[in-house]
């Protein structure tokens, strides 16, 4: 499988390293001659093309016509947009990935026909935010680019949800308890299943209802728990 990466910096270096080790054939496009020299010294297996990756001829030099995927990771969103659009519209590359530096551009890229968008700022900030605000969340996995998320929450004795049945929780639409883990047993809950303390709930939810889920379980909007010495400030969401 051939993959073209457009961009620079450590991101490209490590991306190339990991893809080469998995046996992919990599071509990197970058505008900076010094960086290109460095890349070709470091990655003997990769092809390096010097030039502006948003120009059709440079993409052609890099073999865009017979490549399986193009990844645009420049720090400039308009460049990434044009690279992705050229690759998919003009050259019919089957898989095109674009990095978005400004998270607001996710919807812009989607409206303009770029389907697979990676917003590093968004992913990192949402992960940090959720971890900082909530100690009780044990694991958190975004699914389908963050449209759905999966989290695991441990039930503390003082949570109002303890002792309630699933049907009494008042969960919002868009959230569901998939599994309860209790003393190493796995329970698939139904409406009458009651929550006990120390249960670990695995919840699937759409991001918009996260606060409501917290409220239904703990009685407060964020899970700031008594063991925190200082109250957690209401973060910007």
């Amino acid at each position: 499988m051939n993959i073209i990466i457009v961009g620079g910096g450590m991101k490209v270096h490590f991306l190339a390293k990991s893809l080469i080790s998995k046996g992919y054939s990599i071509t990197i496009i970058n505008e900076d001659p010094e960086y290109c020299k460095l890349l070709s010294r470091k990655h003997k297996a990769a092809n390096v093309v010097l030039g502006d990756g948003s120009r059709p001829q440079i993409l052609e030099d890099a073999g865009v016509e017979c490549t399986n995927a193009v990844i645009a990771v420049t720090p400039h969103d308009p460049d990434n947009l044009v690279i992705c659009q050229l690759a998919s519209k003009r050259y019919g590359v089957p898989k095109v990935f674009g990095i978005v530096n400004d998270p607001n551009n996710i919807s812009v890229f989607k409206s303009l026909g770029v389907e697979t968008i990676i917003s590093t700022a968004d992913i990192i900030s949402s992960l940090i935010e959720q971890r900082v605000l909530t100690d009780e969340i044990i694991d958190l996995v975004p699914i389908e680019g963050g449209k759905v998320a999966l989290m695991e929450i441990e039930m503390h004795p003082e949570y109002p949800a303890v002792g309630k049945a699933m049907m009494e929780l008042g969960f919002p639409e868009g959230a569901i308890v998939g599994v309860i883990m209790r003393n190493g047993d796995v329970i698939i809950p139904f409406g009458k299943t009651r929550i006990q303390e120390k249960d670990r709930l695995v919840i699937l939810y759409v991001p918009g209802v996260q606060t409501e889920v917290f409220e239904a379980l703990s009685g407060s909007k964020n899970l700031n728990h008594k063991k925190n010495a200082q109250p957690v400030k209401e973060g910007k969401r």
Partner: protein
Amino acid sequence: MKNGYNYFILVGCGDLGSHLAKALSRHRKSIVIIDKNEAAFNKLTADFSGFAIEGDGVEEDVLLEAEINRADVVIAVTGDDNTNIMIAQIAKVIYNVPKVVARLYEPSRGLIYEDLDIETICPTVLSMSEFSDMIALDLRQEHPQ
């Protein structure tokens, strides 16, 4: 000359952007000009009667501040082709602006939006065409790269 376009947004206050802004002002059009760099607005003289917004024209917030949803014409003339392509597509696809013009130094990228109703001005092609006329020899068959 009469035309129905009254509200213009210009992105990029370089030589072309600032001249266009002044010329449109003389025709009593409403104009908002956007540039990342505040110093660029020094090119605008007293005969410019519109508004200037300092900001990045690819940011939706900046375009909304310029009220792109009620613009008749959006002209993307920043120094960067890809930025112009992105702004033109945002204006056309997301905000349905009736008339959208982008300046591209390198016209080959314009084929990204060839199925959209966006007009492209390419200084190289225009100069070639002028030059062809001057020496009465058609040089236009080959696309400049």
